């Protein structure tokens, strides 16, 4: 309440906003659409720096690369909004990859089987993450760290440490196929994006997600079944991880137990760059999608500029920290 003294004034500021100067207006626009503006700025900058960046083929390439991490990041966004974290996505991708590949050899099963098994494994890992976190009262960092280690081990065990190749054409389509010239992963990225956005912003499920992250105790008192909801959120994240894992396997056309290393961190980075707050209760799907695109544009642009991958990592690190810095300053102001 200390801050309420000043904050209580806020309503008058807002109603006066229309009379206040352009400076406030600009800062207001920037704080709302800041990440989008930064994204456009990066695209413009890259277009000037290298002639190879801004053409349809390259842009499609960027978005396709981003779709896998982007889909994982959307699930992670739900988790982070509840004030949780998911460190297991990278390893779970590897597990799904080898298990699905094993059922995707030509002439053995219909396409439905590897997809269903992959999605099932993903959802199951999420279910376990959520249950351990909610019912076991174990911090999600630890619960998912355990899953991260165990799932990687399971993937290596299942595949005997070797890649599983010889996949059916119908399976390969989900990673490499195109519809009307648009790569299939991009279409899935957009569809998952729209569904996740609607789910988060317009449904009971979404509101409860925000509420739990915003104040878990208050959520319980409001009658929300917090444990059940947390389990559902982690399961949803596992499900999206599975979708990304299946497409990635098809894209590189083998089931790889070493696949997806560091994916969990890239996904968290995308969510955070996109404005999702680790303190819970704050974040949006469009933000996360832009966050993933920023990482993609950065990687691609720097590749085209022949910047070494070492420098790319350093820059990526700097951008993640800067994004959070801007975000925390924004929060402090309000």
């Amino acid at each position, binding site marked *: 309440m200390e801050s309420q003294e000043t904050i209580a*004034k*806020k309503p008058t500021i*807002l109603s006066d906003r229309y009379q206040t100067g352009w400076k406030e207006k600009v800062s207001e626009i920037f704080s709302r659409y800041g990440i989008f503006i930064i994204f456009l700025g990066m695209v413009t900058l890259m277009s000037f720096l290298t002639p190879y960046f801004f053409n349809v083929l390259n842009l499609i390439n960027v978005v396709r690369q981003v779709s896998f991490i982007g889909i994982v990041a959307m699930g992670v966004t739900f988790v982070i909004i509840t004030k949780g974290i998911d460190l297991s996505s990278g390893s779970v991708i590897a597990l799904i990859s080898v298990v699905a590949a094993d059922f995707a050899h030509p002439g053995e099963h219909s396409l439905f089987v590897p997809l269903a098994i992959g999605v099932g494994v993903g959802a199951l890992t999420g279910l376990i993450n959520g249950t351990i976190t909610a019912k076991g009262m174990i911090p999600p960092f630890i619960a998912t760290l355990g899953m991260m280690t165990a799932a990687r081990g399971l993937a290596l065990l299942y595949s005997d440490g070797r890649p599983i190749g010889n996949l059916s054409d119908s399976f390969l389509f989900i990673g490499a196929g195109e519809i009307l010239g648009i790569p299939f992963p991009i279409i899935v990225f957009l569809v998952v994006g729209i569904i996740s956005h609607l789910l988060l912003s317009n449904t009971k499920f979404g509101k409860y997600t925000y509420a739990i992250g915003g104040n878990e105790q208050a959520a319980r008192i409001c009658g929300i079944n917090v444990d059940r909801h947390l389990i559902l959120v982690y399961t949803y994240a596992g499900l999206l991880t599975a979708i990304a894992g299946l497409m990635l396997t098809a894209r590189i056309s083998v089931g790889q137990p070493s696949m997806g290393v560091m994916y969990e961190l890239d996904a968290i980075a995308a969510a955070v760059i996109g404005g999702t707050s680790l303190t819970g209760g704050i974040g949006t799907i469009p933000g996360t999608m832009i966050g993933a695109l920023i990482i993609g544009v950065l990687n691609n642009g720097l590749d085209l500029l022949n910047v070494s991958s070492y420098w790319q990592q350093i820059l990526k690190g700097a951008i993640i920290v800067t994004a959070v810095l801007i975000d925390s300053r924004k929060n402090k102001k309000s």
Partner: protein
Amino acid sequence: MGAEYILEMENITKEFPGVKALDNIQLKVKKGTVHALMGENGAGKSTLMKILFGIYSGSGTIKFNGKELKLSGPKDALNNGISMIHQELSPVPYMTVAENIFLGREPVYGKSGWVNKKKLIENTKKLFETLNISIDPTTKMKDLSIANMQMVEIAAAVSHHANLIIMDEPTSAITEKEVEHLFKIIRSLKKKGVSIIYISHKMDEVFKICDEITVLRDGQYIGTKPAHELNQDSLIQMMVGREIKQVFHKEKAEVKEVVLSVKNLSRKGKFNNVSFEVRKGEILGIAGLMGSGRTELIESIFGIAPPTSGEIYLHGKRVSIQSPSGAIRNKIGLLTEDRKLTGAFLPLSVKENMIISSLENFVNFGYIKSRLVKKTCDAQVKRLNIKTPNLNQLIMNLSGGNQQKVLLARWLLNDPDLLILDEPTRGVDVGAKAEIHKLISKLAQEGKAIIMVSSEMPEILGMSDRVLVMHEGNQKGELSREEATQEKILEVAYQ
């Protein structure tokens, strides 16, 4: 002049982007006096104190002991002899009481940086002795009750040997007994020539302990007067700029059939054998000091921590409520004691805060009908007179009173038969307080059964039809509205 005043703040102005929080404020505090700083929430009291304590910078002059003071931060303020008891406690839970008090200035062996634990504990013991506080310095902070934490905070502020101590709502979390203790400490500090700036919403305290009163309103300086020249009515008038005649808007309501009946309810270690009933249209006040088990009692009724024995009947039917969602299904609502901790979703909007507990009514296959939400929330904003620029405003940007109204609206949307209000006007300014009281009375008239827990005696006396008195987990008695007086309630509690 300089000798008489310890503090002279003049022409203090502070602007936040787009708003003048303080406009030409003055505050002059005489040596060895207790000076109350009064005003509604948003009047600028805390902002002014933050400037004085070096947390904010503002324009204007501050003279301390006759010398002009320019502070670089709280540490600088402490070095200059100004200390502050913050309204919100900030304990380090896993450190001991002694470590908390001397945080950042622990006694060390020579210049080694090794903490001299023995001396640390000794110093704390000495400090507690002078203040008559009986808390073990080696207890972990997390194991203390809120009231004791507050006493530690007070001791810490005193331990700086400051000439001026700012106390921002020091009694918001402590019971009457400890308030008396605090006043003793204040009086002995006064004798030593220490001056105190006292911020509180509780009028009776202010008149009891303060020598002079300065009033702020909407960032403006209204005036300074000796306390004995003012009374409650004239002070309220200064604060709100309009006369609030009737402080408690309790209207007669028709009392009908029993809604809730509780028989021999107990929760081990918290409260024993509590029995009472509440009827439609009735307001049952629960009075009791901190630690009396009153909050635990209503938590058990609401299913947060189910009782270990006893029975609960709703509309004559026995119920077993194991969770808040069970309570909500049984048409019970609970406005919790601590708005920030268990009430508001601070990062969410006014709208979301309002509908979160009744979402069922707004969804079609899980999809939220946004037009219905807007219509419903607009109606609540209007009905409860909530001051917010729009429904999408984040609740944390509203004043305490308006936040409380939003949370009340949340429970009204569930249309409960029984509404439990725990400290419904804590940290709420005078104007909003009256509005909330009026609303509570109206809800009773509309046929709701209401249980109201409050530490504020005048509120209990002004609003309740009956008063249930609790003390140390036991039900001590029940008083009718006519019987109940402040003295009588204490008498029953301690009998």
